[in-house]
């Protein structure tokens, strides 16, 4: 079997999880070692696969397909994996964040280490599976599998109010998943296949109102996951209670499963419905940008503040994707990676300060730039990336999203652009309260600066931030083929819709017709 295969990529973490499970529970060092090694190997394989990916082609690559089982009614379900322009950046991001998250656990996971490592690795398998599945049933399986580890990570290693947060997270997502399941089942019995590529080709021909129902079912599940305002209230609670590594994965990858799903299913599979629903989705995105920013402004807990900022940032993603223009789609995809990097790094940094001071209340800090200059440098870089400073990654995505939105809906672009201002307000306010001002509290005076491990785990993120800011084409080029293909599908759907509208107008008796018949 080829070493560089998607199966190896997906199941390597699971193998690692089994190995960790087999170790004696006292051997913490061994468990961490295996996990780190597995994550690192997965990261290398994942990134190599993405480098090996030809972005000019719209077709899925590294495809693996074999029959899995047959559903009652004779519908074959396949084990089908593939990498294409819609998933390539997400796979790279997931692969990259794996070892980083693992390294961060050294600082805050001291109890039940073995279990934690197992769940971390299982989650990696689940997330990679979601992005790489090209079979609907396989996708749904991985989707549910990825839900379970976070449920336990939140519920066992979470903060004091973890039960409430966990149940909320779980009920929300399961509710969404169930609605999606109905649509999944409808689709496979309507077309007799579960192959996503085939479904994408045939579902576009469904009548508009049927598409709209399916769109709604998928969109609800994904919007909860994103989370799109008004389905966002689980997020802040989950982040506040989650351990650092849980937050990084949640913000970095899990939320992207929602935006990825919107793109892969809602837009690509049901283009006519997506065009119909775009104004609503764009409006929700734009409102989310401003709403999330105001939400963040009112927070006094730094972690909750960053969690609320996610609502704002993911609003950009949804806005860009549903603008469905060349710039909007590219900006949305880039913004998915950007958010993973910048918010992931912010959560890492918040975790590092929490491990030292055991508080996240902003008023407990102030002036720590004086005692933690290296920390301050990294924090400011993460903030600048998050506010979209040109030259770093955030800007390119944000600009393309807004530009793409402007082409479709100038008013929404004008609303969304205020996020550029409000984003600076809450993030700089947090920076000011955390890093600057006089160093008053005794507990802050004895803080120690970052350790080598902490610097090393953030370095790849910083490098990527600069790279994506200076040469985003490296990344955009890999999405080119798929996005061009998607744009053509959308154009076709638009043409069909226009033709339908014209036909409707022709068949409907006009005033002129009526006059004519009267004259006759």
């Amino acid at each position, binding site marked *: 079997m080829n070493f560089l295969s998607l199966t190896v990529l997906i199941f390597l973490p699971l193998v690692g999880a089994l190995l960790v499970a087999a170790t004696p529970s006292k051997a913490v060092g061994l468990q961490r070692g295996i996990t780190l090694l597995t994550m690192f190997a997965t990261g290398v394989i994942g990134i190599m696969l993405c480098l090996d990916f030809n972005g000019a082609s719209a077709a899925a690559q590294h495809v693996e397909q074999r029959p899995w089982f047959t*559903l*009652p*009614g004779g519908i074959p379900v396949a084990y089908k994996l593939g990498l294409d322009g819609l998933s390539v950046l997400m796979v790279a991001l997931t692969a990259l964040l794996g070892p980083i998250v693992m390294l961060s656990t050294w600082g805050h996971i001291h109890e039940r280490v073995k279990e934690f490592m197992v769940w971390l690795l299982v989650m990696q398998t689940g997330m990679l599976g979601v992005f790489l599945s090209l079979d609907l049933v396989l996708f749904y399986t991985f989707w*549910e599998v990825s839900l379970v580890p976070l*449920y336990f990570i939140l*519920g066992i290693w979470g903060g004091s109010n973890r*039960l409430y947060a*966990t149940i*909320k997270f*779980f*009920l929300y997502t399961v509710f969404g998943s*169930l609605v999606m*399941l109905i649509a999944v*089942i409808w689709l496979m*019995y309507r077309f007799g296949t579960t192959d996503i590529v085939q479904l994408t080709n045939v579902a576009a021909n469904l009548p508009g109102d049927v598409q709209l129902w399916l769109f709604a079912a998928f969109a609800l599940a994904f919007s909860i996951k994103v989370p799109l305002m008004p389905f966002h*209230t689980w997020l802040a609670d989950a982040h506040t209670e989650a351990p650092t590594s849980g937050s990084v994965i949640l913000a970095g990858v899990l939320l992207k499963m929602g935006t990825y799903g919107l793109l892969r299913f809602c837009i690509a599979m049901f283009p006519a419905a997506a065009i119909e629903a775009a104004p609503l989705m764009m409006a929700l995105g734009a409102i989310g940008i401003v*709403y999330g920013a*105001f939400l963040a*402004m*009112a*927070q006094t807990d730094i972690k909750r503040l960053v969690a609320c900022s996610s609502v704002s940032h993911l609003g950009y993603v949804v806005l860009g994707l549903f603008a469905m223009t*060349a*710039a909007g789609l*590219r*900006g949305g995809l880039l913004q998915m990676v950007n958010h993973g990097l910048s918010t992931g790094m912010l959560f890492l940094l918040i975790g590092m300060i929490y491990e030292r001071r055991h508080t996240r209340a902003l008023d407990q800090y102030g002036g720590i*730039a004086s*005692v933690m*200059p*290296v920390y301050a440098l990294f924090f400011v870089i993460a903030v600048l990336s998050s506010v979209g*400073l*040109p*030259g770093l990654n955030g*800007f390119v995505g944000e*600009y*393309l999203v*807004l*530009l*793409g939105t*402007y*082409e479709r809906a*100038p008013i929404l672009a004008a609303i969304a*652009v205020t996020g*550029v*201002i409000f984003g*600076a*307000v809450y993030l*700089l*306010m947090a920076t*000011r309260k955390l890093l*600057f*001002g*006089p160093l008053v509290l005794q507990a802050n005076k*004895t803080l*120690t600066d970052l350790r080598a491990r902490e610097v090393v785990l953030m370095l790849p993120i910083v490098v990527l931030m600069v790279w994506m800011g*200076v*040469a*985003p*084409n490296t990344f*955009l080029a890999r999405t080119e083929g798929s996005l061009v293909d998607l*744009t053509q599908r959308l154009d076709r759907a638009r043409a069909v819709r226009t033709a339908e509208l014209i036909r409707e107008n022709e068949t409907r008796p006009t005033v002129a017709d009526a006059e004519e018949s009267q004259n006759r």
Partner: protein
Amino acid sequence: MFIQAPLAAIPQGSTAFDWLWWIPLLPLAASAVCGILHFLTLRQREAQNPRPKAAHGAHADHGAAHGHAEHAHAEHAAHGHDDHGDHGHAKVPAGIGALAPIVAVLSMAGALFLSIKGFLELRGLDEGARVLRSSAWDWINAGSLSIDVSMHLDPLSSVMTLVVTGIGSLIFLYASGYMKGDAGYAKFFAYLSLFAFSMLMLVLSSSMLGLFVGWEGVGLCSYLLIGFWYEKGWPADAGQKAFVMNRIGDACFLIGTFILVKVFGSLDMAAIAAGVPGALVDGLATPELFAAGLLLFGGACGKSAQLPLFTWLPDAMAGPTPVSALIHAATMVTAGVYLVVRLNPLFAASPQLLAIIGVVAALTAFIAGSTALVQRDIKKVLAYSTVSQLGYMFLGLASGAWAAAIFHLVTHAFFKALLFLGAGSVIHGMHEEQDMHKMGGLKKHMPATFMTFMCGAAALSGLPLMSGFFSKDEILAHTFAHGGLYSALWIVGIITAAMTAYYTWRMVALTFFGEERFDKNKVHVHESPAVMTLPLWILAVLSVLGGVLGLPIVFHAPHLLADWLQPVTKSGTAILAAHGTHEMSHALEWTLLGVGALVALVFAHRGFHIHKRGVAFDQGFEKNRKWTAAFLTDAWTIDTKYTRLIVGPIKLFAFIIAVVVDQFAIDGLVNGVAALARDLGGRWRRLNDGHIATYGLWMGAFTAVIALLFLWKS
């Protein structure tokens, strides 16, 4: 669909990565080196003086720390004058960080050298072909839009690079003396060099988005440098305010670029400028182009501190004085002026837009000028003066006097940098005193600072034959010639000129003349070292003689700057000329020059003589006209109103969103639904034994059952 500029109009020069790139890259490299030096210095300091750890080992460390403190103290006393270089912190030996200014000054000198090389190469070319271009890579490709990163050196950007690198070199040199002893010595030069990089990107980029990289980059450096002494708290607040207010302008700027992309399909500024004439209807801008221009002017208002976004600039004085001189007087704040001149055809095509700019500019000049009249803080006088002078530059732009605006930009860079550096020298010599009421009689203590400051003051107040006289006069002459609404703007301009002369010489009188109003036993005033006075002398010469760059027509000498900028400005000028030209007779021009000279002389005299005698007049004014004094000191209470009418409501709104809407309405609904479901499922309660895992299992089982049911049915 897109209005394509004729290909010939887009200048094609060299297309490879070449030496032009080194103009911004040299300071960037210096910034990186200085940053590394900063962290090495911190390491060195840590090694010499380990911080006591929280738990064990604290005792041993404590002893070491104590020893070092004594050592430092001895070194301090040996230094001679007590608090030299003190900025409210203990003086700290620079260690390896002492290399930072050398690196930074050398890199700026290198950039200056390359800028001169570029200028000379341009001069060697035919007037129509004066463009050097160096492309490097495609930055962003999205569909049909492709944005590349290239350097574009033409007469306008060469003037800007010369100002930035020339004045930058002098200020870097000055800062090496001014910042000596500061704990963040190397960090300061890292930020300052990063600023130079961003500013050079701003003026050299060929595309709007490349310009925006520099535009936000200078904003970032401004934020970092205003908040350089963040331990004090309020500088950090001031930096944050500057960044956010700039962002308001930047948001406008972004929408402006969206419109340009829609109309021209490109963000290349040369292509846009060349494409404008073809996009006009009857020689006038379409509503779309008008909106683009207005929004870009909104961006300029943020960066160049015009109404309504000017209130950050006075607060920005919390930064070290070399920063005020370089960023908040000579270079960054003029970026808006540069932007308008760069896209002059776009602005020329909308007379209404020009009128709006004119009104905003005149109001800004007037409000800021009147505020400067009553300030006691020497840096605040200069800050409001800068806002006011930027207003003059925009007034020039509103009159279509592109070259005159750049002329004033250049002379203002000379004399305002000089005045700020002089003020810094005074503050330095006075041990961090900025209140002019506590100064007085400094001329005999600080002769070099005094002499050079006089030159700067003469130029700012527009005394005859000084650089500021010619540049200001040229702007006012163009405004006058326009007639109509512009006549009113001219009157505002001339009143502001009177106020300028008054506050400038009030400042000179309060600082350098009269009795010494400080405790001579505590404050030992001293002249600054040579690294600080040398830049002062050079800038003094430039401030006095800078007028030769643009002598008025009646002097029968060529207007060097206007001729040089001709290739850039001619397109806008031609569009304006299509609406009618404004010729002036020589007699009228002489009269205007005479009026300008007379106003400057009279009010300079008044300002000097009233305040030479000390603070009695100010105190009387404050006592007798309480309301007026308070109103003017607070800059017409505009900032106070912003806090009350905008910042307050936004905070309240955020609170309402977070608590009322989010927690009660949305989350309340969610929890309500959940509670309802729980009540309905009351009889299942024994299944819910409270263990979260059980919930999970039940959810999973439920999912599976539903799935199976569906499969069965189908």
